[in-house]
């Protein structure tokens, strides 16, 4: 039966899995696969596994538990090996690389930050600062049929939004980077101009969180900061 893999840890990780269960319905039992140097948390793979909510929660819960007790390399959701024996073989084969990454991540946590800004406040800023946008906006308001000018206004505003969002994203990420060890930029979303993960030392987590609070305060109420963490270091493996 195929083996679903949750995480790779060092051999001396306690792998405390009591009370947790794996993916699937009914939930699969968790077990461990060990080599001399490494361990992996695995379970059977349910035949019809999909990324359902309860499966994602199960995956995430295992990783959070492991994270609490030591370094663990979180696997991407849905990774399946042919059987336990081949998982063991993969651990042996990748031993050096896995061991090095576990050492890098020991005592470190991921925090994901998403920042959005109210569109209206950004549009106001653009209208205030761009004479051309102002001119086109006034013109098209008084001449609602002026399609060319409307498109020109929309294009100008859209370019301004993009440039300003990129600048804001860079600025916020750079400000916070000094409070973290590593930074991993994700794709912006439709809503959030910044989507970024930080790798933070466990003993510096409070200071990092404080830095995010201060940045949110500095930016003001037009911005919405959403900070998630501590998380398994998905973005840094």
């Amino acid at each position, binding site marked *: 039966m195929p083996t679903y893999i949750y995480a790779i840890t060092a051999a001396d990780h306690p792998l405390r899995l009591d009370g947790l269960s794996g993916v699937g319905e009914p939930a699969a039992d968790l077990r461990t696969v060990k080599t001399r140097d490494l361990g992996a948390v695995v379970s059977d793979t349910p035949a019809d596994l999909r990324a359902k909510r309860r499966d994602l929660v199960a995956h*995430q819960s295992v990783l959070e538990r492991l994270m609490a007790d030591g370094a663990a390399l979180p696997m991407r959701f849905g990774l399946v090996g042919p059987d336990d024996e081949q998982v063991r073989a993969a651990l042996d084969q990748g031993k050096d690389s896995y061991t090095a990454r576990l050492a890098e991540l020991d005592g470190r946590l991921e925090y994901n930050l998403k920042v959005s800004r109210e569109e*209206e406040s950004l549009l106001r800023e653009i209208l205030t600062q761009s004479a051309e946008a102002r001119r086109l906006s006034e013109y098209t308001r008084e001449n609602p049929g002026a399609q060319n000018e*409307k498109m020109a206004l929309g294009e100008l505003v859209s370019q301004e939004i993009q440039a300003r969002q990129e600048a804001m994203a860079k600025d916020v990420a750079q400000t916070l980077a000094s409070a973290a060890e590593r930074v991993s930029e*994700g*794709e912006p979303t439709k809503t959030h101009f910044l989507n970024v993960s930080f790798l933070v030392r466990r003993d510096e987590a409070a200071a990092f969180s404080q830095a995010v609070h201060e940045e949110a305060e500095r930016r003001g109420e037009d911005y919405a900061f959403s900070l*998630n963490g501590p998380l398994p270091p998905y973005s840094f493996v």
Partner: protein
Amino acid sequence: MSLVQQSNASNSSGGGSGNLYDVLELILDRGLVIDAFIRVSLVGIEILKIDVRVVVASVDTYLRFAEACNRLDLESGRKAPAQLTDIVGDTMESGAKGKSKGALTGAVEAFTDSFQSGRDDSDDDKEKEKRPARKTSASSSSRRTAQRREE
């Protein structure tokens, strides 16, 4: 200032949906893979990998921005542009707090946040006109596209 901090540790057993949603992309798209192994099919999952740049540079978006600018102009009357920000501040603070501010926020969300679109249907906010509806269909079709790509 607006900051929402989610601590996962307290949430993992119950699994708050907002929280899971926020980290979905990390669970699905990041994390370690072993090259020789396979990943289960993710059919049925909406991975919202829309290229934001493409969405922004579309005729629909241009028109929407143009109309939004026109509306802002109207709201602020003929006052000098430099004072725009102050006027907004005043309006939002002095307006009947719950209702008008809520309506304003709701409209903004309808523009910017496709995930919220379903909830706005019950709002009888005349100013929104047909905009949220159009937005909804546009975003859900692009989501379907994204989903198809995953399949």
